[in-house]
């Protein structure tokens, strides 16, 4: 054993983990194992050993590596799974995904294909999408390594880990006794105690470090075998950091050998035959004997790689920019001369050229950009499309770039590209109208769906939105189609307006997970918006406010015109209902990009909560008239029904008129509500309050119970009134501190009139008599009269008690 360096190290101290992986692999309810740990602890080796064990058990196995280099081009890391270049059509990503799925099924047989993925956290987004697609199909088992537990593990694995379908193995450094055993087995004999100690101290159980130390010490004659015992001939360079060790080993190489390792660092793996055209046989043998390079069998070909990624890292760092550029270009040319016939070759060449020059063959780049677009990897799409446009004017690349820019929130830049390359793309209309708030003549699907909702064709809108989502997932070429998140959000809004909060919530959650999975940053605030609306509907005003605030925070980076408008209004309603001062920024003054009832509703609730109920109702009627004239009957209904909740009986007629064209259970309940109030039918109002409760609209239920209580009291049945009032309070208490003038105002034996309620709210909020008179445009004397009547009806004597009765002693309110 004294001759030659210790190159092949036995696999020591990790056998229990291999057993564990075998158990997980045998369990069909588990999909993957992730091995995490710092560099050099032997993650890759563990994955390899697990594959060997799986293969011995009769399973098909395959190993791929994700690297920084492969991350530059979509799908490069998984190239081994792709069909051969002659049959692969990168312009048809949908068909490509399908054919990979079929290939995996074929290889898996009745079992599962075991795929080892080294450094899975470096996988590009498209490869991640393909991985998710294959895992969903159930014929794949993944054994992945990842640098750190917190690293960027693909969502497909992260979600499965949460569902308990993934085993996580955290690999640490070897223990000292493992190190002793490993040294003994590797060197084939005992070591002196001080040699063991020195190697342990320097490596701290990091296998790669230990290996570098031993190889270095053997090579420079420090570690020698005398009479069957390994010992240090003189003091070892034991304190050297691992990077220094690698650097010093590479510094000692001849010029020819160094150029081989440099080429490998940039372009590995390289076929042995090809490498032999570039390097001397003797040099390769020498490098192998020095433990710097190794050969692997891959698809009937022998490939040469550096022994560890750390070597590549150290090498590329020390390479001058121009030198690495010429190495990459020369190698790309060599592969091209050979015909670039291997799997992934076209992608590899594009990747090398991109790294070398920032650009590459525009046709290849365009294909790569299309693949990235297909999996919604918009950062990559942008980079690749820009590289194409750097070469030539290309409208397809321009459209790809426009879409990527819009998705990344650069709406103005996106419009410039749209105008230049795809003036008629549906995405352009969407970007102009909704993101930038400018008028466009052409129609787009989102506007069509929103119009359907506004006109009360809610079920139709929900079905059409779902159809758009389905179309997207079936579609082979997704270019020009907005991400389906937006349609799921619209579907959720339509369902919510029918009163189906449950399914609205499902659609919203689906929207959110699709946005998260695609890292669709600009779609994220849409999801938060609709989730906020669902909370608001259910009376969870605090949760709603948090969701709206999150959406606003997301929007800060890329001010989307329509959405900022809507979310600001939603946020304002939440604040009003919680009797908090309105948010500081108002969307007021801008051209309204989209007619949505939430904007006038926000203004009305702000006024109503400040005691200006008459003003609020007036505003709602005005907005409803505009909506009705525009055939937006569902919008008019939303506005008029809130007026009705505020006690305005003049809303009944227009409300019933507009309701006739609106779908859904919520509309039916609203109709019942209006008719029962019109007929002063106490039982009708009570029953429909229950109905609102059944529909999950807690805050509306609270208001309607209050109105039933008022009716009962006017009818002289005080006991029934109290019982209904208690119900209203119970519903209100489920609303996270929400308060409305109808459900929240105290009542005495005689209900307050609408005007008295306004004065009472203002006075309870701390306004002086004079301020109330100014705000409501009344004489001071009239306000005093109202206050007098209020005290009488409520049985109280002063303003402090009034504040207590309204629960507003601590109101912080900023009057504008």
């Amino acid at each position, binding site marked *: 054993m004294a001759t030659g360096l210790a190159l092949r190290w036995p696999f020591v101290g990790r056998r229990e983990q291999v057993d564990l992986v075998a158990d997980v692999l045998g369990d069909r309810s588990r999909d993957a194992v992730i091995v995490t740990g710092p560099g050099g602890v032997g993650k890759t080796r563990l994955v390899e050993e697990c594959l*060997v064990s799986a293969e*011995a058990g009769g399973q098909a196995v395959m190993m791929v590596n994700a690297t920084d280099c492969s991350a530059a081009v979509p799908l490069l890391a998984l190239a081994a799974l792709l069909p051969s270049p002659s049959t692969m059509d990168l312009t048809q990503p949908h068909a490509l995904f399908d054919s990979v799925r079929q290939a995996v099924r074929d290889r898996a047989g009745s079992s599962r294909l075991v795929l080892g993925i080294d450094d899975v956290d470096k996988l590009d987004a498209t490869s991640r999408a393909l991985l998710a697609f294959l895992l969903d199909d159930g014929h794949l088992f993944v054994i992945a390594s990842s640098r750190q537990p917190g690293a960027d593990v693909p969502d497909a694995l992260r979600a499965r880990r949460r569902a308990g379908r993934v085993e996580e193995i955290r690999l640490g450094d070897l223990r000292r006794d493992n190190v002793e055993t490993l040294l003994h087995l590797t060197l084939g004999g005992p070591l002196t105690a001080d040699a063991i100690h020195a190697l342990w101290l320097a490596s701290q159980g990091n296998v790669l470090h230990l290996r570098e130390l031993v190889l270095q010490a053997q090579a420079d004659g420090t570690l020698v075998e005398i009479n069957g015992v390994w010992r240090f001939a003189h003091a070892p360079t034991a304190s050297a950091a691992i990077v220094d060790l690698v650097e010093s080993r590479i510094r000692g190489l001849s010029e020819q050998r160094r150029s081989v390792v440099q080429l490998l660092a940039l372009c590995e793996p390289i076929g042995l035959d090809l490498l032999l055209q570039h390097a001397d046989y003797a040099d390769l043998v020498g490098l*192998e004997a020095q433990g710097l390079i190794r050969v692997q069998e891959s698809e009937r070909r022998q490939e040469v790689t550096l022994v560890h990624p750390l070597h590549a890292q150290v090498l590329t760092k020390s390479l001058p920019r121009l030198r690495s550029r010429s190495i990459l270009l020369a190698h790309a040319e060599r592969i091209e001369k050979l015909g670039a016939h291997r799997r992934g070759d076209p992608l590899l060449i594009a990747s090398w050229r991109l790294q070398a020059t920032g650009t590459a063959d525009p046709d290849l780049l365009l294909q790569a950009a299309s693949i990235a677009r297909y999996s919604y990897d918009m950062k990559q799409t942008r980079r690749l499309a820009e590289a194409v446009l750097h070469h030539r004017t290309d409208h397809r690349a321009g459209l790809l770039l426009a879409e990527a820019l819009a998705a990344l929130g650069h709406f103005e830049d996106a419009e410039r590209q749209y105008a230049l390359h795809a003036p008629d793309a549906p995405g352009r209309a969407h970007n102009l109208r909704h993101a930038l708030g400018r008028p466009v003549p052409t129609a787009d699907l989102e506007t069509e769906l929103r119009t359907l909702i506004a006109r009360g064709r809610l079920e139709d809108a929900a079905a059409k939105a779902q159809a758009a989502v389905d179309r997207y997932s079936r579609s082979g070429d997704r270019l020009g189609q907005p991400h389906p998140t937006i349609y799921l959000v619209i579907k959720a809004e339509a369902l919510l307006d029918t009163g189906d909060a449950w399914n609205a919530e499902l659609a919203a959650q689906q929207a959110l997970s699709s946005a998260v999975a695609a890292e669709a940053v600009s779609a994220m605030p849409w999801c938060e918006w609709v989730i906020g609306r669902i909370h608001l509907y259910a009376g969870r005003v605090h949760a709603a406010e948090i969701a709206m605030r999150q959406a606003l925070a997301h929007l800060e980076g890329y001010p989307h015109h329509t959405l900022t408008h809507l979310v600001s209004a939603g946020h304002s309603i939440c604040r009003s209902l919680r009797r908090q001062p309105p948010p500081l920024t108002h969307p007021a003054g801008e051209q309204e990009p989209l007619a949505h009832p939430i904007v006038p509703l926000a203004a009305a609730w702000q006024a109503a909560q400040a005691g200006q109920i008459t003003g609020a109702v007036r505003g709602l009627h005005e907005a409803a008239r505009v909506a009705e004239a525009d055939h937006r009957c569902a919008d008019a209904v939303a506005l008029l029904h809130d007026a009705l909740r505020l006690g305005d009986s003049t809303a009944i007629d227009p409300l019933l008129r507009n309701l006739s064209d609106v779908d859904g259970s919520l509309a039916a309940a609203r109709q019942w509500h209006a008719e029962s109030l019109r007929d002063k039918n106490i039982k009708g109002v009570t029953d429909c309050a229950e109905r609102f409760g059944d529909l999950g609209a807690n805050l509306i239920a609270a208001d309607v119970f209050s109105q039933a209580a008022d009716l009962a009291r006017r009818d002289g049945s005080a006991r029934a009134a109290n019982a209904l009032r208690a119900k209203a309070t119970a519903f209100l208490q489920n609303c996270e501190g929400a308060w409305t003038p109808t459900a929240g105002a105290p009542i005495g034996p005689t209900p307050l009139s609408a005007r008295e309620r306004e004065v009472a709210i203002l006075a309870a909020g701390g306004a002086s008599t004079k301020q109330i008179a100014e705000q409501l445009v009344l004489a001071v004397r009239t306000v005093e009269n109202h206050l007098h009547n209020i005290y009488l009806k409520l049985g109280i004597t002063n303003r402090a008690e009034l504040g207590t009765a309204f629960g507003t002693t601590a109101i912080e309110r900023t009057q504008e």
Partner: protein
Amino acid sequence: MTPQQIALVRSSTDQILRESARVTAVFYRRLFTDSPELRSLFPDDLAQLQQKFADELRFIADTIGDFARFTERIKTLGARHVGYGARARHYQLARRALFAAFTEVLGPQWTPEVDGAWHAAYDIVTELMMLGGAPKPPAPPSIRSHR
């Protein structure tokens, strides 16, 4: 292992073998008390295992200085154990029972130095057994063998 540990393993083997009947009895008792699930991996009659145990111990002591012979024999032993259903964690359970038996039977003769030396030997033996039991990866290709 250090040369001193190898010497300690050799010099202590006779002591252990003098008490081998008791050591094996305590070992199996401990093992099956602590890990009853392992009982089924062993034959009903443990008497013949006592002799085997003594033989293996003697072999280890004799050959531990001759690495090539030692390695080959232990790997074969490991390959056999896969057939018995032995898994990595079983080696840890057996270690606990075995060293408890050494301590109990040999008392003050079982010094910390002897204990450390045998632990190091046990590590090497079990890793070699597991290497012997693992499926053989295809021999790594090498550039040298290319021509």
